[in-house]
């Protein structure tokens, strides 16, 4: 039997977590586990703390509560650059439940929102106030036993942030891969590029070789072709029911080019 403990305070909820408990955000991960009888927990911990639903501007940063849903992201004018990302997650029903914090724990090939947050160099705030960068958080997420309370990002300028999800099924399908690129530019040249891929590994991952190929270059066909070539050294994607690792490796550079050069793709 499963018990449910609901706390009005997120820190109290975090304190109630333990090896026999799981945190319930929107339910898209926890409830699926329960429905299939695959749970390794006997307690569900949840929180109604309004702080988890907050979207706040602080200087040049935007803090997004971990309990904010994909639908709430789409409804926020402050998060307009993330609307295409949130829209690519499931259908309306899933988006009404799925949370920003929960997406950090979505297993391959899910986690498209986390891919965008990785490209945007998000900081992950956990209960107790500690903060770590997205990349190290994702690397250690399987051993994380606290509560993510919010994520903080810098708002990208203009067209500096791009995102695309590649699926076989239109308009919605599970990712063959998702790609997010943050290429802040100054005087016509890319500064420090951040490119993240979803569904190319166990967690969203950065394409560091491709990033290096773009840095301090103008964003044009020549630099993008260099990034495409460099990308081949970035990943060893897994085989799954959607695509083989070989296929993903072969098509990833093409999708990166389409993203970075804003090439039109039939919807």
């Amino acid at each position, binding site marked *: *039997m*499963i*018990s*449910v403990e*609901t706390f009005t305070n997120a820190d109290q909820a975090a304190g109630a977590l333990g090896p026999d408990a799981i945190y*319930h955000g929107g*339910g*898209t991960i*926890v*409830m*699926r586990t*329960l*429905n*299939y009888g695959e*749970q390794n927990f006997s307690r*569900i911990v*949840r929180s109604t703390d309004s702080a988890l639903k907050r979207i706040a501007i602080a200087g040049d940063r935007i803090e997004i509560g971990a309990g904010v849903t994909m*639908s709430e992201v789409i409804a926020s004018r402050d998060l307009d650059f993330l609307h295409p990302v949130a829209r690519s997650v*499931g*259908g*309306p*029903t*899933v988006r*009404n*439940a799925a949370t920003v914090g929960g997406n950090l724990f979505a297993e391959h090939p899910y986690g498209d929102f986390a891919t965008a947050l990785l490209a945007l160099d998000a900081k992950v705030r956990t209960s107790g106030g500690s903060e770590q960068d997205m990349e190290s958080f994702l690397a250690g997420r399987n051993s994380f036993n606290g509560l993510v309370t919010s994520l903080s990002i810098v708002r990208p300028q203009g067209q500096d942030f791009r995102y695309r999800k590649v699926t076989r099924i239109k*308009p*919605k399908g599970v990712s063959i891969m998702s790609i997010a690129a943050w290429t802040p530019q100054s005087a016509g040249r890319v500064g420090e590029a951040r490119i993240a891929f979803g569904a190319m590994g166990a967690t969203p991952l950065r394409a560091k070789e491709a990033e290096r190929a773009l840095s301090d270059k103008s964003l044009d066909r020549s630099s993008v072709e260099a990034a495409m070539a460099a990308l081949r050294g970035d990943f060893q994607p897994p085989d799954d029911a959607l695509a083989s690792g070989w296929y993903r490796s072969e098509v990833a550079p093409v999708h990166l080019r389409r993203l970075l050069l804003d090439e039109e793709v039939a919807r």
Partner: protein
Amino acid sequence: MTKVPVRFTHNGREKAVFADGGDNLLEVLRRGIGDLSPKYGCGQGTCGTCTVLIDGEPYLACLTLAVASEGKTVDTVGGLANGPDLHPLQQAFMDHFAAQCGYCTSGMLMAAKALLDRNQNPTRYEVIEAISGNLCRCTGYEPIIDAVLTAAERMRGGYGSNSMGRAG
């Protein structure tokens, strides 16, 4: 383990049931109060046949923790018709042969209702987007999309949301 009480408004009527802690809303609806209209499909958020409206928004009942529905309004396809009068969506589904095996229909209707409740003049793409979380393996979707657009047209023509909406 003791059961927990869950109270919510179901298709306009107050309901109170006892649920196990880990129960999903779909189990409470089907086994707890006997509303068999939302269906159990995949249990993982893929098929959409368990779609219900919670406080007017579409959710998957199989992925909704029952206790999280406390105090909320839950509407299912079982409450769509007004006595013998079909909802315009139901009538349009019949007119367009938008159901074959019928398994997706309960979710399709509620996903479409969520759309038409806020937008009675949707584009074809908006209909596609609204039902994008609902799988149909019989119709090829086109009759369903046509039916939703027809229902929207009839509702704009003055048919009430719970009135018979057959076009002449």
